């Protein structure tokens, strides 16, 4: 069995938010998180999907 691996950095967001972002082709690291610790909430994602913040690199 595999022991607990060391943690690596990633965007903080719940599984549903991650899933919805992926389904909509949104890079979560571009969505500013307003939750604790910069967590991207469902509200953050919905706001971003309505009017994506001006981001430097269009995908």
């Amino acid at each position: 069995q595999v022991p607990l691996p060391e943690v690596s950095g990633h965007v903080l967001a719940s599984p549903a938010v991650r899933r919805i972002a992926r389904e909509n082709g949104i890079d979560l690291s571009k969505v500013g998180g307003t939750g604790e610790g910069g967590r991207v909430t469902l509200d953050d994602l919905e706001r971003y999907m309505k009017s994506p913040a001006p981001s430097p690199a269009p995908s």
Partner: protein
Amino acid sequence: MYDAIIIGSGPGGYAAAIRLGQRQKKVALIEKDKIGGECLNYGCIPSKALIELANSINYLREMPGVSLNYSIDMKKWQEWKWSMINRLTGGVETLCKGYGVDVIRGEAYIVDATHVKIGEKVIEGKNLVIATGSKPVRIKGIDDVMYNREVLDLDHIPESTAIIGGGYIGVEIGTALAKLGSKVTIIEMMPSILPGTDQELVRHVERRLSQLGVRVMTGKKVLNTQHGDKIRVNMEGGEYVEAEKVLMTVGRVPNTEGFGLENLKLEMDGRFIKTDAHKRTSVPNVYAIGDVSGQPMLAHKAYYDADIAADNICGMDSVVEYRAMPYVIYSDPEIAYTGSKSAKSTRFPVAANGRSLTMNESIGTFNIYYDEKGIVTGAGLAAPHASELISELSLAVESGLMAMDIGLTIHPHPTVSEGVKETAEEAYGKPLHFKI
């Protein structure tokens, strides 16, 4: 022409079949043995039923004031067990059929990526899902032994049992047999039982095993077995153990031979079939899921794989992407862990949890790992009902919650889950019932 042909109806295969059927895909699910695979018939399900029985007996035997006289007709119990399993596997088959899945009995033989033979019959599918699972490691010279199937089908509790291999299966079944009255010896090659599991959790199990009179021999390599009046297990260095029955649980290997897999010329990853994050193999439209596709060899990982493969077959771009894979060991106390370790951690003893004491349990620990921001990255529990408690922590890890989120959530009294709350409290304050 099927949308997908699935080989093997364990947790991986049947879940993939149901998931595809739910989305109107035409699926063939092929099984040569019993629907439900190793898990439902010879693994997870029967082992937990046996452990439940053993726990009740042992709880009463240890409880002051209770005088217990019991006998177990294991043949009758096995009938109950199989009727319970059949209810589950029957349910799975009904579900599959309810979603239009063709359940085909027989051994599958892979002709090529789109053709599979069952006996004389050849069927065609756009996608192929390999979910053939795993089988126990066997070693030449170690004969006359039981594997998981045989031990779970015992018609009596052996007077004595030697267990070769102190991994989770050996420890789970060894503990249960000991509680049911067998004199159990566990022989492990590594320096400790449950290798790979945090020793901080394992030591509680070791303590309990010793209370239960289980003899644990570590760092011992078994050479062979000899059949006499009893079975003799010979170890390197001349030591040996004799027992009425010997259980061999030194690991499991994926089922990759004897069914034409070689015709696909898949890339392998050691003995496992190599898959990418989509659960795709190196051959287009061929997927591999569950035990055959790599570690961890666990049923809920097989379910997860099935979801990913089914999504991709349906044209959704799903990838393996979890932050919290739970591991559960039904030892005494139960061990469960999830997520990953971090720089910071907190600890709370089971002995300070009221609910545990009402169960006459006081051995174990709750550990939570969190980062500098207080965000929970993982947890390790050795506690009563740890198997059920770990999901709150997985949810926290997956959702990026803070230890404070757990600590400020009201947990009902009296529950073991209060131990989780108090452990979380220590990350930003102080637990109520424990002073370091």
